[in-house]
């Protein structure tokens, strides 16, 4: 019988995932593929924004989409109409994706032949924020009907994102939503956050967002 030992570990349980994510980012760099992780609450307009984004950029980049939503076969069909390659990820009912699952999806999608891959993460603002997927940049969508105090209620996701897209600004007149307040609260959490108010419905503001993304993708895939 072996002797009982106590082993001090003292490490975050996210550490393994963080290492895998860093490794995946290095691989993406090698393959010259840009991965964007898109997060939001359900119904904030991820799919509609994605469609607009693809239409703007599909003639410049080879684009792929990974859908992680529990029930998003409808989304996948919509994306398919744009002509870009899309797959459905199998999360096994999990509330988030980790770097391992993301890499499996990228392998299935065939990242060697793609310049830009967009991951539509599982729809919530809590769990996806804790797990680095290995993405090059992280973006979140907050829509006007959700209210301007979300940065106060869910601070973590605002700190891990590079971009905040504020969607559905066409309905601003009908909601008690203070655009300046939400910017202030969000920047309080993350002073480097880029903020793009858009309407995925009317197309307002979309080009500012896609200009930013175009530059980011270009820098990543053309770097030496």
């Amino acid at each position, binding site marked *: 019988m072996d002797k009982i030992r106590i*082993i001090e570990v003292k490490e975050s349980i996210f550490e393994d995932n963080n290492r895998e994510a860093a490794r995946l980012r290095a691989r993406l760099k090698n393959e010259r593929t840009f991965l964007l992780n898109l997060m939001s609450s359900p119904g904030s307009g991820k799919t509609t924004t994605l469609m607009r984004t693809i239409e703007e950029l599909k003639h410049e980049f080879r684009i792929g989409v990974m859908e992680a939503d529990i029930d998003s076969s409808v989304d996948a069909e919509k994306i398919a109409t744009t002509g870009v390659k899309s797959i459905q990820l199998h999360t096994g009912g999990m509330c988030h994706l980790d770097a391992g699952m993301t890499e499996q999806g990228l392998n299935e999608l065939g990242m060697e032949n793609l310049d830009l891959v967009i991951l539509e993460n599982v729809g919530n603002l809590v769990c996806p924020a804790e797990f680095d997927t290995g993405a090059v940049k992280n973006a979140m969508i907050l829509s006007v009907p959700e209210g301007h105090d979300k940065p106060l209620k869910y601070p973590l996701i605002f700190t891990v994102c590079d971009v905040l897209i504020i969607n559905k600004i066409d309905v601003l007149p009908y909601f008690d939503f203070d655009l300046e307040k939400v910017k202030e609260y969000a920047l309080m959490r993350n002073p480097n956050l880029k903020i793009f108010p858009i309407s995925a419905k009317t197309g307002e503001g979309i080009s500012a967002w896609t200009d930013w993304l175009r530059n980011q993708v270009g820098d990543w895939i053309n770097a030496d």
Partner: protein
Amino acid sequence: MHELGIVFHIIKTVERVGDENSLTNVSEVTLELGEVSGVVPSELNDCWNWAVKKTELMKEAKLLIETIPALTLCESCGKTYGTVEFGRVCPYCGSENTYLVQGREINLKEIKAC
């Protein structure tokens, strides 16, 4: 489900540490859990007891949870206060310019094994 995902990551970490230390049987795993980590301890325990049965290394292992209190620092007056009691508004000066300094941790503290 959030807790199950967390449990899988704990198991993965324990398996790696087990490998590195040539452990054959883990009997106890101690976790440090931040008060505002968003993880519910009772659900974490239920998921743990279900998931360890499917492992070789920690079939009978108990999960011990130590709570790390959540503390918020006020940038305006420099004081620290309990997050759960007072939230994001500083009880000393009323400022909203406050940051969580601890309380979101999910750390694997130690493993008892042979």
